[in-house]
């Protein structure tokens, strides 16, 4: 929510950004850092992907450089838009490298006005957290978890919107 506000703020700033309108001596807002990314290692991420509320949680592991991830990202956004009222939460876990947070990830989030919650996952000990996240995950991106309470499903694949919606609906019934 906070990020959404900041994005709106950012957009309103950008609208006024025509150089001619800026009076001399005015300090330009630091647009590049209008929002902060939340960065977690596995211990920090764990509670975020194991929530015990009554909601359906859709967790997608992605990165801006991962072409199939970017292709399916709008589907997750659509699930958020269509199913938020039915207690479905979407969490986008970015595996972008930290050196690209400012140059790639933040611009991507802003340009595409991503509405789902995004967290950054930065943990090099892959052999620890891949099997911990799911015993069947070979480690390929993209990957998705859908869970509600004790029911949990892991997908090491790309989704069409129809496929994703079908999986989400299984958790709603």
């Amino acid at each position: 929510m906070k990020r959404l506000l900041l994005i709106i703020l950012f957009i309103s700033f950008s609208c006024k950004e025509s150089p001619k309108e800026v009076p001399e001596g005015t300090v330009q807002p630091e647009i590049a850092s209008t929002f902060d990314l939340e960065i977690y290692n596995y211990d920090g991420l764990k509670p975020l992907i194991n929530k015990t509320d009554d909601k359906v949680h859709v967790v997608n592991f992605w990165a801006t450089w991962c072409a199939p991830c970017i292709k399916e990202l709008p589907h997750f956004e659509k699930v958020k838009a269509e199913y938020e009222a039915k207690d479905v939460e979407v969490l986008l876990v970015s595996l972008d490298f930290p050196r690209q947070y400012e140059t790639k990830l933040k611009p991507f989030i802003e340009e595409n006005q991503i509405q789902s919650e995004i967290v950054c996952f930065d943990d090099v000990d892959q052999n620890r957290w891949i099997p911990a996240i799911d015993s069947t995950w070979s480690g390929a991106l993209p990957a998705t978890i859908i869970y509600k309470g004790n029911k949990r499903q892991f997908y090491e694949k790309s989704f069409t919107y129809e496929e994703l919606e079908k999986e989400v609906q299984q958790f709603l019934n």
Partner: protein
Amino acid sequence: MKSLRVLAVLICFVSLTAFTITTDGGYDIGDVATDFSLENIDGKKVSLADYKTAKGFIVIFTCNTCPYAVAYEDRIVDLDKKYASKGYPVIAIMPNDTDVKPGDNMQAMKARAKAKGFTFPYLMDEGQKVYPQYGATKTPHVYILEKSTEGNIVKYIGAIDDNYKDAAAVKTKYAENAVDALLAGKEIEQKTTRAIGCSIKTK
């Protein structure tokens, strides 16, 4: 009663583990790996059988376009420099569909190999027939094979080491440890590890 419960848990665990291993498809530890004949960046075909004096192979499915694969390029070169002379050369195979990933086509592979000074073959998995047999799902994905009278036996599957981001901060060199163990005639401690990577691209 208690022991029965322990047994039940144990059976459950064992079946779960067995299930995990078999769902991935491809090779498990101990399987005989298939040989292949794939085109190298120099235009020549390469097979494992060409390496008469090798004791085994470090087969790595990798590509130009995956940031994890790129992060490991120098370390793959180092692996070959360290182990080729000891009988374990690196054989790199590019498994992606090049229509989906033009940045991985033969021309791009040649350019990348030249820029990074690859000392090993960098082969195109033309028709994408080899990677499914191995069960590779991503780049980079390592298979260490040991030559035996029955063929090339899969001895290690997984990651190169435990830090994709920073070679200097690596604590455990899984692939090197595996080859060292094979060279010393010892049991490999960690035969499988998980590595993060980019899904292999198909149409």
